[in-house]
């Protein structure tokens, strides 16, 4: 099964994580600081290893002695592209941005909801197995043009299907249209009026509420933490945009 490396200087937290993860059927390896984590990684995933012991995901705390999470992250990214989820009590925006910038795939703050944590782990693993690392899926060009892919969200315009990390997501037609519009131009901010006009094909008269409601639903279906969305971002006072990862 999949192997996960858990790294935190708090033994209790490492223990709790181990219990959760083994409960989901994963193998767990432990480390208590950045140096240990790198050692284990080199042993299991390094050039001299035979691949049988390879680690598939790393859960790493930031505030650790000897070598902190960010440093270890940078080192790690020099040789491996396995998914890394940063786990930390530092919840400022700056810290999140820094973490993601140095190469982390996700960021979850303590105290965390265990259910959310497991969901994120699963999502990262699925994506890793499907898209990167383990196997490369060759997507025929024609097919690629019909598909809109942003992060873990895949929208297939031929089959009108939307998947999140490989798992199907049920969207209403309006929700689908809104998602497609936003995914076609990632990073562009659409005002509620513009979205309404495009999707309902009607001029918007005081019905901007509707758009907000639909976006809210979309977010709840697509995001692990709707309050802190990774993909569907609300630009308050202006509109909405799809984050361009």
């Amino acid at each position, binding site marked *: 099964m999949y192997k996960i490396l858990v790294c935190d200087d*708090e033994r*209790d*937290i490492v223990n*709790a*994580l181990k*219990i*959760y993860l083994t409960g989901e059927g994963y193998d767990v390896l432990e480390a208590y600081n950045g140096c240990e984590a790198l050692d284990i990684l080199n042993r299991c995933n390094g050039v001299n290893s035979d691949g049988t012991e390879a680690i598939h995901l790393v859960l790493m705390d930031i*505030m650790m002695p000897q070598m902190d999470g960010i440093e270890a992250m940078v080192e790690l990214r020099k040789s491996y592209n396995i998914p890394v989820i940063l786990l930390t*009590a*530092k*919840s*400022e925006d700056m810290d999140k941005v820094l973490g993601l910038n140095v190469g982390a795939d996700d960021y979850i703050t*303590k*105290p*965390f909801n*265990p259910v959310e944590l497991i969901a994120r782990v699963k999502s990262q693993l699925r994506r890793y197995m499907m898209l990167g690392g383990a196997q490369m899926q060759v997507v025929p060009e024609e097919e690629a043009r019909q598909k809109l892919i942003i992060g873990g969200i895949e929208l297939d315009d031929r089959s009108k299907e939307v998947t999140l990390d490989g798992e199907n997501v049920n969207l209403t037609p309006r929700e689908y249209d809104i998602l497609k519009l936003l995914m076609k131009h990632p990073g562009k901010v659409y*005002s*509620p009026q513009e979205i309404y006009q495009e999707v309902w094909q009607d001029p918007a008269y*005081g019905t*901007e*509420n*509707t*758009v*907000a*409601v*639909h*976006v*809210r639903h979309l977010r709840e279906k697509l995001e692990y933490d709707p309050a802190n969305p990774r993909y569907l971002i*609300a*630009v*308050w*006072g*202006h*509109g909405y945009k799809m984050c361009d990862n």
Partner: protein
Amino acid sequence: MFEKLKGKPSAKILFFVLSVLSITFSIVEFGNILLKSMLLEYGSGDLYRELQVDYIEDYVHGIENMSDISIYLGLVVGIICSIFFFIGYMTISGYYVVDKELQVQRRGLSKIPLDLNFVIFMVLEGLAMSLLAELSYVLEMGSNMAGIIVLMICLIAVAMVVVALLYVMTLSVNFKLPQWWRHTICYKIIDFILGIVRNVSDNIRCNMARIKLQRRIWMIVGAVSFAEFILLLACLDTDAYGFLILLWFFEKIILIVFVYRLINQYAQIKDATQRISEGDLEAEVDTTKMFIDLKEEGEYLKSIKNGLDVAIEQRMKSERFQTELITNVSHDIKTPLTSIINYVDLLGKEKLENAKAKEYLEVLARQSQRLKKLLQDLLDASKASTGNVELHMEQVNAGVLLNQTVGEFQEKLMESGVELNIKVPNEEVRIYADSRYLWRVFDNLMNNICKYSQSGTRAYINLEKTDDRTIITFLNISREPLNISGEELMQRFVRGDSSRNTEGSGLGLSIAQSLTKLMGGEMQLSVEGDLFKVQLLF
């Protein structure tokens, strides 16, 4: 050329002596030439009769017999030697070896001040000359001490050469030293007088500084006017119009210069003060050349500026300390809290037969979640109230934001049984704020509405724009009776629900108010019966 001889006293004496000798010799040879031409004209007989001195007879004979060439040669040699020794003496004079170093020093005769020196020299030579004149007159008159007189004349002549040489030497020594003009009596007298004047004026200035500014100015004006008056009176009888006009002119020039300087300095101080008041604490004023009072003002300004610098530095330090404290503490609290939440959750997954244990576990779960929310709110509240947030201010479309907010809360509103009415004007209403934090404020207020409204009632949100401000009003009916004022409610940890049963932390309104204030707006709360009204004014 004479470098090696400088500083050697023996060399000085030698050169002195040799200079005297060669100069004397040159003069003598010159005299011989004159004598010879006289002898040719008048014949020697006359001279003998005049002087009747033996040795002189012999001497004149000797000259008569000497060839012209030898005399001229002697003269030339004498002149060359004189020049050589004179220059040499002048060059090496004044040098002494002090602590193994060659220095020029004034010693002995050179110490006499130059003007005095000059006077003494003139007097001596004058005396010598008059003496010589007397003596030669005596000689002409005829005397039996002719021999001695002639000798005396020779001696006096030599003495004159010596004195002249010494005088020139002192001159050369003095000129070798820097600022030789200071070594005169005149200079010393002038310097002395100036010193006294300076002292007096410093004294006056000191004393003036002690007298109050206004009294001082009136004193000066009074004194000047009085002096003018006296002068005018004095000039009344005379026709000294020209003098009066000149005086008037003179006074005006002084006045103008004074006023100009005064205005300049004042302008400098004013400018520096303005810059400091605008926040530029680097403004400096050069107080060195100012009048007393303005100088003092400049100094005060400097100390104000320093005080400000210190105060600001301290404030920044304390703020930094505060934020560090809060981030560190909150981080340290979150770590054990994480474990608590995790293990409570894990416990929940274990099979617990004991019903009471399950109940207690639920309490633990609930409270630990509440603690988590409280911690986050505390962090936000402290950041917002110390202004430690980075604001990205922009023109936010209030109408769009409101509609987005309503969209987000639609479900929660439905669950709470609250019907929301919003009123937004047709034209675009823009607020200058940070969109994320404005959303936070709306978020807090909407959460309050959802949590505390009476089910089945309506809530209202109003957006209106008057000439100078934008007002957003949130109105709802409270489920529980509100027995406290709006002000109290906004205090931290105060909640309308006095039983403290619900999940709120009591910080929502406080955070909203801090954020609103940070963005330049104002939040007003009023409670009337069960009607709860929040107004945001921008």
